[in-house]
């Protein structure tokens, strides 16, 4: 459970530090007029905060899977499977997807809509290509006799890669919605949408790097 514990300890540390900083040296029993603006606002708009919370939940999910992986690995029946070379290509494709959305994000900040359209198209296309690539990698492994229930190493490989692809699929739905805003030239929504999608893509790329590293090293 080390991975999950480290992550949660860090996260709870941040939560506690932030809350204590907010609440220390405050005398709640003293009445006073509100200071200027609405409290609680200012550090992040709601949608960005919501994405941050969602990413914490997803990180918790993957950290727990990684913990389970490392505990199950200790048992003698664990036989590592060879990672298909295609995974390196897929990694590059997912990186390109991230770069595409970063491009779109920069475009949105400068209201350069053609760049936004091209960037999101690259991001979506590369994400799709990554998913197809992962499917092909699955088929290669199955063809080579590494079936899902054959060995816990296989089971974890399919489970972790499958779950990662599902998260990317969810991201594609959000990206399609953002694409709608871009086409309708709803500037504010498109800007926020592109930014959120870009952050999510980067996040999933980092998650993939960690998972891939884990699969390669064990």
């Amino acid at each position, binding site marked *: 459970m080390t991975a999950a514990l480290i992550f949660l300890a860090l996260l709870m540390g941040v939560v506690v530090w932030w809350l204590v900083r907010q609440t220390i040296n405050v005398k709640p029993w003293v*009445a006073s*007029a*509100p200071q200027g603006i609405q409290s609680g606002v200012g550090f992040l708009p*709601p949608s960005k905060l919501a994405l941050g919370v969602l990413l914490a939940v997803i990180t918790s999910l993957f950290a727990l899977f990684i913990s389970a992986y490392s505990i199950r690995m200790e048992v003698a029946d664990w036989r590592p499977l060879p990672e298909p070379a295609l995974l390196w290509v897929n990694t590059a494709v997912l990186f390109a997807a991230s770069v595409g959305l970063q491009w779109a994000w920069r475009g949105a900040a400068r209201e350069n809509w053609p760049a936004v359209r091209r960037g999101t198209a690259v991001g979506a296309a590369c994400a799709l290509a990554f998913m197809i690539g992962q499917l092909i990698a699955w088929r290669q492994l199955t063809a080579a006799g590494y079936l*899902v229930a054959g060995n816990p190493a296989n089971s974890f490989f399919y489970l972790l890669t499958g779950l990662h692809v599902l998260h990317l699929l969810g991201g594609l739905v959000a990206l399609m919605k953002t694409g709608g805003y871009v086409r309708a030239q709803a500037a504010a929504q498109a800007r926020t949408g592109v930014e959120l999608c870009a952050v999510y893509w980067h996040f999933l790329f980092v998650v993939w790097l960690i998972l891939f590293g884990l699969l390669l090293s064990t």
Partner: protein
Amino acid sequence: MAQVAHDAVTDADLGPFEIEDPELYHPKTFIGKYIWSQDAKVIAVQYGITAIAIGLVALALSILMRLQLGWPDAFSLIQPANYLQFVTMHGMIMVIYLLTALFLGGFGNYLIPLMCGARDMVFPYVNMVSYWVYLAAVLILVASFFVPGGPTGAGWTLYPPQAVVGGTPGTGAGIILMLISLCVFIVGFTMGGLNYVVTVLQARTRGMTLMRLPLTVWGIFMATVLALLAFPALFVSCIMMILDSLIGTSFFMPAMIAEGQQTAYDGGSPILFQHLFWFFGHPEVYIVALPAFGIVSDVLSTHARKNIFGYRMMVWAIVAIGALSFVVWAHHMYVSGMNPYFGFFFATTTLIIAVPTAIKVYNWVLTLWRGNIQLTVPMLFAIGFIFTFINGGLTGLFLGNVTVDLPLSDTYFVVAHFHMVMAVSPVLVVFGAIYHWYPKITGKMLDDTLGKVHFWMTFLGTYAIYYPMHYLGFEGMPRRYYAYGTDTAFMSQSAHTLNEAISIAAIFVAIAQMVFLYNIVRSLTKGKEAGPNPWNATTLEWQTPHTPPRHGNFDELPSVYRWAYDYGVPGAEQDFIPQNVPSEELAAARAKDEGAQGEGKADG
């Protein structure tokens, strides 16, 4: 103590709100208003009704269990397999589908926007979907009663391998439906949880600083943070167990012979499941307890007409309990065969958690100390909670120690402990909260006499159920047994008599809940008009222009000038000052009052 500041600031000087009012969804049809509603208050009531409905199923299951235990073999419809299914479904429904859903989905939805001074949750649409996903989870769970083999009988902890292999009731569709239902529940909860966290952090009204939030909001907020981080552990274990069960992976399933056959499983680790399950399971205790802690603080303060003792300590205790709850999970696994140092670590963390918890208990008692205590029905339940929680908490100190836990593990002592601390205590708070906020939700008061009958029957009845169970546990009576016979010949005859008495008490408590339901339904039409603020409370939900509050909650969003606990402030005209009352208004009222007194003296 409140200091009344005399800075003459009016709303006009405060500048604009940073966040514009959200565009509210305006329903035009009955279905839009009450079924597919995006109003957090309607969603809260939907959550509440669904949770209580499924909770009644769990109540009925507990009575069936008690019938078997009190009068073994008298009821032919309760077979051993059914008994295990009743145990399992009762536990799971109570913990997840009733308490978690009711505290966070029910009270969270109703109270967070109102108490923070917001018009609604930040993402109303996601909030609506959250409820419908929760309902789907409940329906999937209920469906498992009707599949071949019935629901799972693996115990609410669903430990593999017995949850998956033949011999346990419901290993076919039953366990799969249970696991799917849990996954669906978690997805639904995550949608709601995002809303609760973001609304508390981002949508508080002007002047509502974090340290002016009522403790109810603090409790629900921290419980939501815990739930968002802990539920993934349950999700992970459910997914892996579904794969073990359906396609024959060996995540948790070891090589074994089941029903005389060698299974295809090999090498899986049942202990891994236990780690994952309790990594969720222990924070779950606090997911249920923290909202109860928050609500009970507000109820005590309001009905004792006194500010909460040690507000800042209360907040930090909530945060500390939340953080610590992630490092105590293995105290549920002392008998699984762990390294003694590991056990020592978890016993230590478990006992450390008693410190912030004790701070809270002392502060509740000190809030009552020399307060102007009103023994209203919500207050009775709140005081009942303090008693029950102290009792359940103290037996927790026994079980937290490895050496004491080993002989008591899997006995009725454990059953008595967790029912006192995380079943009866939060349920008493649920009742107190319903009696406290029902007047705001419906505009009608609940009947006082029926409420008092309900309280005393429930409070005394639950003690009659769970107090004797401690003795049964000391005697070694194991839990989850259908019948006690040759295997448990060490049990004295009086233990069986005691079981009969416990069953009678359980039926008595179940009848008390019918009084409550009758009161709820009857008061909808026949209850006394409540008025906007029947308890003379300070928090914002009691200051709404309409009762019940309309969609959007407030006409104009309130500005907050003070904390939620200005009761019995020296020099104030009334014994409470609402959070949205500015200081200069008070000063003016006092000046007017003094003037009137002066004139009176002159006349005399």
